[in-house]
């Protein structure tokens, strides 16, 4: 009996020591999907290389994507020490920042040399970096090369385009190349490719807007706001959403909705539905995240558009082309008990070597030189870097603690306007009030 007791005690002791050793490893809280799969490649490279010399390993702890940020926030706020590193994003950064460790002291000084500055800005708050960028997102205006080529070369189409613009926009316009689209050009193109307006259109709809009551849809819409000179707030922090620029931006969408140039179901569209409308050949254009390019341009997934997709900057307003830009990154849990090790891994993650591994595994790193170098396998990559650098913006307050609540308010009010539930004055006035309340929180 004694023998068994000693054996059990030895086993328990060994298990405890083993568990303590495991706790010394660095744990990264992430979500399952292409990002964590790409991250695993980086982690494997680290564990087999620098990690061996430094004497520790990194592992991932995956929460499901459903409600990920809510669970992550709850754990961070509770001071959990179960993970050392965690996924952070531009729009959740402000809320997470009180529970994150500033990274400035952990990263080499030359980090800012290779990352796009908009990516570092989008993961910074109060002058400190809180996340090493891993993926960058911008928006593209997607179009069909075959349709636009025909429009730019067929005199009959051009004459009809001009007629439609005169009839619906009050001004005869000539088609212009997507790279030079203004918002009026975009609307005119959307109208031209809408069968209820132009029965000869090869597509049923000219556009596929995403209008569901969802914060990500507001991020896309914000290009209309900022390119027209608007913003959430001015440099002094005064709320400026109830502005002419916002009215113009909302009405750009409303004109497309009212004229039937976007599918009626757009009111419930998000990423996947807009891809389906465009990819099945029902819509000639769409305003969409860069991540959609690989999907709608894949002939296996969407035979109608595969290999035919062109991308351009978001249409220009008086302030030129502008695109919302945000980043995913990895931040450090302020409650971590392994900050030195976690910081060493983050420093490795910020290196060109790690970012190249991440890109090769399917990530979209915010490093223009890497994006440029992968144009043969990912033709949209150089444009992501270029658009982020030339047209990218982070909305005023977009990294603050109130960013998500403000997005929520805007999504609710503007979705209400686009669905005809409230008028534009009410939407903007309630948006301003809601913003003030969210910021005061």
């Amino acid at each position, binding site marked *: 009996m004694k023998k068994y007791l000693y054996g059990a005690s030895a086993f328990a002791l060994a298990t405890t020591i083993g568990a303590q050793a495991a706790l010394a490893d660095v744990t990264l809280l992430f979500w399952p999907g292409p990002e964590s799969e790409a991250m695993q490649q980086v982690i494997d490279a680290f564990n087999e290389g620098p990690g061996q010399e430094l004497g520790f390993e990194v592992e991932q702890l995956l929460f499901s994507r*459903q*409600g990920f*940020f*809510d669970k992550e*926030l*709850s754990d961070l*706020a*509770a001071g959990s020490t179960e993970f050392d590193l965690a996924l952070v994003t531009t729009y959740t950064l402000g*809320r997470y920042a*009180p529970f994150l460790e500033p990274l400035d002291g952990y990263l080499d000084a030359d980090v800012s040399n290779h990352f796009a500055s908009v990516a570092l800005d989008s993961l910074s708050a109060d002058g400190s970096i809180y996340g090493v960028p891993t993926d960058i997102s911008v928006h593209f205006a997607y179009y069909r090369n075959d349709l636009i080529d025909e429009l730019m070369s067929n005199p009959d189409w051009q004459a009809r385009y001009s007629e439609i613009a005169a009839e619906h926009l009050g001004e005869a316009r000539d088609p212009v190349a997507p790279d030079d689209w203004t918002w009026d050009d975009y609307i005119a193109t959307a109208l031209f490719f809408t069968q209820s307006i132009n029965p000869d259109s090869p597509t049923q709809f000219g556009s596929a807007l995403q*209008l*569901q*009551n*969802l*914060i990500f849809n507001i991020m896309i819409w914000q290009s209309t706001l900022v390119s027209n000179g608007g913003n959430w707030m001015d440099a002094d922090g005064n709320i400026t959403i109830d502005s002419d620029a916002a009215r113009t931006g909302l009405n750009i969408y409303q004109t497309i909705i009212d004229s039937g140039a976007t*599918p*009626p*179901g757009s*009111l*419930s569209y*998000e990423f996947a*539905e807009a891809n*389906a*409308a465009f990819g*099945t050949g*029902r819509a000639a254009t769409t305003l969409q995240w860069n991540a959609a390019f690989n999907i709608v341009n894949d002939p296996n997934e969407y035979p109608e558009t595969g290999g035919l997709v062109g991308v351009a900057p978001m249409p220009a307003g008086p302030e030129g082309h502008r695109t919302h830009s945000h980043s995913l990154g990895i931040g450090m849990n302020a409650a971590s008990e392994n900050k030195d090790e976690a910081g060493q891994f983050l420093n490795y993650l910020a290196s060109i070597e790690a970012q190249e591994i991440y890109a090769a595994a399917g990530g979209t790193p915010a490093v223009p030189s890497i994006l440029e170098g992968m144009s043969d396998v990912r033709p949209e990559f150089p444009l992501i870097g270029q658009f982020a650098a030339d047209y990218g913006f982070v909305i005023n307050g977009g990294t603050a*603690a109130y960013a*998500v*609540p403000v997005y*929520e308010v805007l999504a*609710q009010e503007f*979705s*209400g*306007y*686009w*669905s*005809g*539930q*409230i008028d534009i004055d009410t939407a903007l006035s309630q948006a301003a009030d809601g913003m003030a309340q*969210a910021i005061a*929180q």
Partner: protein
Amino acid sequence: MQRRREAWLLIAPLVLFMVVWLGFPFLSNLYYSLSDVTFETLSSPTLVGVENFTAAIDSAAFWQSLWFSLRFALISTAAQIVIALILAIALRPLLERYRFLLAILILPLMISPALMGIMYKLMLNEFVGVVPQYLALFGLYPNLLGPDWVVTVVIVIEVLQWTPFALLLLLTALQAIPDELTDAAYVDGAKPAHQLRYIVLPLMGPAIALTAFIRFIDSFRVFDHIYVLTGGGPGTLTTSSSIFIYRAFFQQGRLGFAIASSLILMAFSLLLLWVTMRYVLKGART
């Protein structure tokens, strides 16, 4: 005295369980509902009295979401009970003969409501969805997730998923009615409609009330399939109380306000529970 002590001893584990698992969270929620608290101040909330409760009561969005939940629950519960009752009476002989049919009928219960939302998102898609394709055969092109139809659609989805649950309970209640009663009524010349009106329905009354109560409470706190399908929109057209509270808590960071709102809803539910249980107990006694 001895019996009294034994009685307390016997219910002690349950009381302890309730205190630990329900009492503590309830008290902490009550404290948070009276506080100005965010994720940043979880460990140091500031007491603000009934401010959160008055803010919820003054909030038009709160009442709007409550009104949606109430309508949603009333209509979907009524539809589920009526359909389940008809199915239970009509299909009883068949279900008693082929018991596996019941297992097939209750399959929708096995599907998670969030998955239900995803399924219907595909089925209702105007380009690739099966429902619009069938409607198009009849020349109908409704925008099923647009402002005119979206409320009806989310109610129909709820009814389709949960009617089998009501059927299960009502069928059991129906089978519990002694055959002697209906046989005697038949001998006395009662027609089927009279048997239904004067024997079956009165005897099933408590079961119907209980089923309606369970379904009402469940439908009243609907979240998953609506959130997945519409996100509570367009605008706020399908924002239920649960979605409203979720947004206030997680997305707006108004923890005290969200908890106060949910406590108001809980009080409302308790009132319903009290009314229903009175009816059920009365029915059971008679």
